[in-house]
């Protein structure tokens, strides 16, 4: 049996979001003076945040939760998992950007320095807001910080500052803000309805940790309404169908490292918020579980169905994110140990795989200047490392053993079947096979492509492998994907601890 969880006071919950925020502000202030100040500050900020996250994870794995500011900051296994993933991904993305971003800015305009400063500053600010989301214990601050992650990433989406990216950024900001407004209603409903059941203590009714105990006492109509609002609001943030329309545009038009961050981490923060809120209602109201499963199944089929017909590699990856995030949320929505475990495991795996695929797509664009599958062929000759990385990602996202995507999807199918939702399990399996077909086909056409390859090579004689600072992150992610696949116990302690933390808040 798991050891009892003890709460200890600590400064780490403060540091984990204040450090990256401070680094981001520092970059805004000093970044224009030199490249070292921009990239160096970003790397140091991320490295320090990563170390803090590791310390938090170490404490959490010993059965502690870290609190600060009364109970307002509360870091448990789930927070630690997200913070660790976020700072690691941020680090990889910044290293990748060191070559990629100058390449993308120089040809456009002279204000490249200013744009790079804003780029790295916002990257760090995003990590700060995201870690704040994961550290806060207040229902309303969860909403505030989640909306702040949208604001921090909006101008990363519009980085190229051309027609399509401005359009994507406008849509992203507008649709996510409107969607998130609904979840604010949800927060207020739950907060107000919970006050009488917590002895009239308004301060306590704001805390996620105390809401779990009383959520079954709230009138059923209010609870269901709030749950629906949470699904709409946080579901928009996560990119669930039918609230996904902003996602393919934003994820495809952003620079590749930002796409990796958006699909890898930003939509996961929406899933995190769902795990903290909607999961509370699952034990009392089975209807919530079915509602979430229906939405997720629709997301899987529609997302993967549209991904299949894309010619734009990045749009294909973006639509597949719509399907993959649905796996995560379906598991979390079940409210059972196996379901939450599978959801969180897939969250980690999708983070590594999708970031790997987006960074590979960015490498293809860097080398060839196009992201249209029909314009590419036979790239494996020129870019063997990228070809290997993309193939690993394609197989992993399709759930091919022994890669990491297999284990989490397998866990999820078992959990969904266990919960009596066989139809949802079948849809999941079908979607998994569609992903496998879609991405191995794309990998084949881009990197091998049979008879068209010689013509492509003749027309593009100068295509060569990307620089080491770019592929090193991709290789690290591919290695991680294989390592977790061969030895899933690698992430088990943290995922297990995070699952137990969610369940303990549910009072189980």
């Amino acid at each position, binding site marked *: 049996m798991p050891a009892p969880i003890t709460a200890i006071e600590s400064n780490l919950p403060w540091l984990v979001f204040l450090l990256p925020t401070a680094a981001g502000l520092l970059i805004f202030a000093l970044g224009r003076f030199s490249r070292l100040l921009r990239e160096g500050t970003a790397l140091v900020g991320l490295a320090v945040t990563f170390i803090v996250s590791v310390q938090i994870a170490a404490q959490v794995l010993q059965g502690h939760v870290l609190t600060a500011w009364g109970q307002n900051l509360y870091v448990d296994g789930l927070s630690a998992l997200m913070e660790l993933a976020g700072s690691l991904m941020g680090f990889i993305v910044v290293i990748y950007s060191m070559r990629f971003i100058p390449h993308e800015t120089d040809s456009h305009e002279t204000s490249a320095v200013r744009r790079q400063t804003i780029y790295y500053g916002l990257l760090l600010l995003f990590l700060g807001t995201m870690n704040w989301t994961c550290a806060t214990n207040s229902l309303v601050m969860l909403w505030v910080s989640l909306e702040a992650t949208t604001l921090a990433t909006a101008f990363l989406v519009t980085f190229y500052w051309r027609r399509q990216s401005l*359009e994507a950024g*406008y849509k992203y900001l507008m649709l996510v803000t409107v969607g998130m407004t609904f979840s604010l209603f949800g927060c207020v409903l739950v907060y107000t309805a919970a006050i009488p059941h917590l002895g009239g203590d308004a301060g306590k009714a704001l805390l996620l940790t105390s809401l779990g105990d009383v959520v079954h006492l709230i009138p059923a109509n209010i609870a269901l309404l709030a749950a629906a609002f949470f699904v709409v609001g946080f579901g928009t943030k996560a990119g669930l169908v039918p609230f996904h329309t902003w996602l393919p545009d934003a994820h495809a038009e952003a620079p590749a490292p930002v796409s990796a961050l958006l699909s890898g981490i930003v939509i996961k923060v929406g899933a995190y918020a769902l795990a903290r809120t909607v999961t509370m209602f699952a034990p009392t109201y089975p209807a919530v579980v079915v509602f979430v499963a229906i939405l997720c199944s629709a997301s899987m089929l529609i997302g993967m169905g549209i991904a299949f017909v894309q010619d734009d590699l990045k749009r294909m990856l973006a639509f597949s994110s719509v399907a993959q995030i649905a796996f995560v949320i379906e598991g979390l929505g079940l409210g059972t140990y196996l379901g939450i475990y599978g959801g969180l495991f897939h969250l980690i795996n999708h983070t590594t795989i999708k970031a790997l695929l987006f960074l590979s797509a960015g490498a293809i664009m860097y080398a060839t200047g196009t992201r249209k599958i029909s314009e590419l062929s036979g790239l494996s000759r020129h870019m063997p490392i990228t070809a290997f990385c993309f193939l690993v990602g394609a197989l992993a996202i399709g759930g091919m053993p022994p890669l990491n995507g297999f284990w989490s999807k397998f866990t999820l199918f078992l959990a969904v079947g266990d919960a009596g939702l066989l139809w949802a399990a079948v849809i999941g399996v079908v979607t998994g096979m569609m992903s496998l077909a879609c991405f191995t086909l794309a990998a084949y056409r881009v990197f091998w492509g049979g008879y068209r390859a010689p013509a492509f090579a003749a027309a593009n004689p100068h295509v060569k492998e990307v620089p080491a600072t770019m592929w090193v992150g991709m290789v690290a992610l591919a290695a991680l994907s294989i390592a977790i696949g061969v030895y899933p116990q690698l992430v088990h302690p943290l995922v297990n601890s995070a699952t137990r933390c969610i369940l303990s808040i549910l009072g189980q």
Partner: protein
Amino acid sequence: MTGLVYGSNIVITLMVAHLIASVLAVEWRSLRWSVVALALQSALLAGIFASFASLYPGAQYLWAWVATALVTKVVIVPVLLWVYINRLPEREVQPVIGFRLSIVLVGLMTVLFYRLMHTYIEFVAPTPDALSEPARSSLAIAFAVFGLGLYVLIARRDAVKIVIGLVLLENGVHLSLVTLAPTLPETALLGILTNVVVTAWLLLYLTGAIYRQLGTTDTATLSTLKR
């Protein structure tokens, strides 16, 4: 707020004026006047908060809501809108729905949303307090204003007008927040309002950039990514 002053003329007057100002902000085709109506609408919102704060004993903490609403919604957001409208076309891009039909629709919607919420408040009222006046009317008004904001987002094509619609929608949320959760801590309140201001600013900044590149603020032209 149960058992306290009901039917205070001031509150009713403010609420009706608030609704009228909302309709004006939606329907005025001159963006400058639309922003003036929006500022007036927000000022009346702050007035409603102030009337709650002064009518109910022990509700002094509501003055924080009044002050923050005045600063963010009456000063900062309208000034931002004004500054950007000076750089953009003053006249709203011709909406899909013509003026007369739009007026009729907006009138019908406002009444319908108000009646719906006022009649079926039991479904959304988290506490018995919300069932009694003036919380009941206040929530119904908030719902109607929220609906007006959504209408602008869906039916209008002008990027600036859509930002005005978003602010209207947020004002509806704001009123419902005060009605349902007046005890919300100041940090949460400030966080929510900061988000609203920053969102409006970023959207206007993007609108300015879109206008410089495309020469229009018509969102119907922003469709290269659709498929």
